[in-house]
């Protein structure tokens, strides 16, 4: 069971941009060894929440805690130093650069001193080969360009990079939204591995079918407010879907679509 002190916690956080309130009285906690899913439609306040957690925005009201201690981050670098790593949707990877160069970008291991100070490429390659091997990605050559990897592999490399560089809290922004079923399952599997290693994973998505199998805890967001936090045993997939904005709309859409396909209906005649 999870540690009683959350790794990262927001208490009654409000964030305003001018007259717009993007987050209202938000409370949220992520524990080590748990996948906490944040669900909500576009505009629900998911990205503001991520950016608050990762140090891009500071709360207008309320307080953030790491390991139970109050903290105020004024830059993403500070959050990173506290072990809070965010894998943004664009992954922050450069397609024309090699996997190794991307993996260590900004934190290159060096050897030698002064004028002979250089990147320890051999060591870096070995680490990349090992780290990616652990998650089942077989790179033929760590010096091949990131652009040659598939979308799911790229996502995994981005996560592996965050984990390797000491992340304790892993914030994943829509990690599966651009991927097909097979690719998404590679990523979900890896998320479960990160959880098994004791990381707190915050998984942001609007896709309940990806979130429900992997999640331990679910927080639903709508218009900047939390609709509540539930453990998996206390809520079904359907209830989660209903609570997300758009759940009802999807059901209505389903009914509407069913009408189109009823045999003998006028609509079918028009279509065919």
């Amino acid at each position: 069971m999870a540690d009683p002190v959350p790794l990262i916690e927001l208490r009654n956080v409000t964030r305003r941009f001018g007259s717009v309130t993007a987050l209202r009285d938000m409370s949220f906690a992520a524990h080590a060894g748990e996948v906490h899913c944040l669900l909500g439609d576009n505009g629900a306040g998911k990205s503001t929440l991520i950016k608050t957690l990762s140090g891009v925005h500071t709360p207008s009201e309320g307080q953030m805690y790491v390991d139970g201690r109050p903290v105020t981050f004024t830059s993403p670098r500070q959050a990173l130093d506290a072990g809070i790593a965010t894998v943004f949707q664009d992954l922050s990877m450069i397609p024309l650069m090699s996997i190794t160069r991307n993996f260590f970008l900004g934190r290159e291991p060096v050897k030698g001193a002064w004028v002979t100070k250089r990147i320890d490429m051999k060591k870096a390659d070995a680490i990349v080969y090992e780290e990616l091997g652990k998650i089942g990605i077989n790179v033929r050559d760590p010096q091949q360009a990131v652009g040659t990897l598939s979308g799911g592999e790229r996502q995994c490399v981005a996560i592996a990079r965050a984990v390797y560089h000491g992340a304790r809290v892993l914030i994943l922004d829509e990690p599966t939204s651009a991927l097909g079923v097979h690719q998404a399952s590679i990523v979900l599997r890896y998320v479960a591995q990160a959880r098994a290693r004791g990381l707190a994973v915050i998984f942001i998505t609007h896709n309940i079918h990806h979130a429900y199998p992997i999640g331990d805890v679910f927080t639903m967001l709508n218009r900047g407010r939390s609709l509540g936090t539930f453990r998996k045993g206390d809520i079904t997939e359907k209830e989660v879907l209903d609570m997300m904005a758009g759940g009802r709309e999807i059901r209505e859409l389903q009914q509407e679509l069913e009408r189109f396909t009823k045999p003998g209906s006028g609509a079918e005649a028009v279509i065919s």
Partner: protein
Amino acid sequence: MPWTLIGMTIVTDALNPAHPPEPKPVSRRLVRLMRRPELGAITGTIIVFLAFGITAGNSGLFSMAGIANFLQVSAQLGILAAAVALLMIGGEFDLSLGSMIGFASVTIGLCVTQFGLSISVAVAIAFVIAIIVGALNGILVVRTRLPSFIVTLAGLFILRGLTLAITRTVTGRTQIPYITDGQEGSFVVWLFGGKFGAPVFAWLGSHGLIAARPDGSPMVQGLSMSILWWVAVTAFATWLLIKTRFGNWVFAVGGDDRAARNVGVPVDRVKILLFIGTALSATLFAVIQVLEAGSADTLRGTQKEFQAIIAAVIGGCLLTGGYGSAIGAMFGALIFGTVEMGIFYTGIDTDWFQVFLGSMLLIAVLVNNYVRRKATEAR
């Protein structure tokens, strides 16, 4: 239930990471070699040498004097091309490069002839000014977030205008002669404008291995120091790019500066340093020309900004940044110099050189685009 199934696969995967057999290092090295950006330029160099070897074999292009000539032309451009390649990999252009050459030339000229400073002090002042101009270019680009193409195009006119205006106001002319008078033997003049390898050439001449004058001294008494500078600058740029953290940042900044910033790369600092690099290379070019010729001219370096970009592009640099090599730029400059001299030696009308240059650029851009597509294709 599906999620428990996923949970089980995870456990097995985590316990038995599927490690494939490592590929043979030889084939891996070959694949890596094929992926190098300078491959096209090296192939181009071989083709150019073969073509002139067949058509201009007896014209003197490949005599000692001819080789010394085209190496010198290539070297001067190559010094610029190495710095420009770094800047282009970093995703920026410096069109003020050619004007910076003129500006640095007259700075040295005026310092020596008007203010009576020694040549070494004048050269030092020129390099300090280059650092200031480069930093200004860089700061303007990163602060305004305007395309460097426009910012440095302004620099092209401002610097050339200043060069002309200041020189004409102070001396009443546009050329400054007699700069090295009386100091021909000094170390600084030799270091930048001298020749090296004299004993070797003397030995070759006295043994009749290369063309010699009747008294036994060789026709070619040594190679221009610019060739050593060319090799040194290229080696330094290559070391920076491939081996150092800074080089990694240069690729990242040119590939995607937002992503680079997200992972903590000091993007602005990298770009400013690259602009300082091109200004320094322009000044090195100017110092070499001034000390070789002994005079400065306000029009020195005209169009060099484009020639350096062409050499870098032939060498495999992408116009969009994030990809390229300094060694490639070296071969790009070598192609440039060889063809320029080759056309002269074969007696072809030199007007054709520009046609060749444009075609070369077009082919290089097409090849680079193809290579880039191949490099990022999912396999």
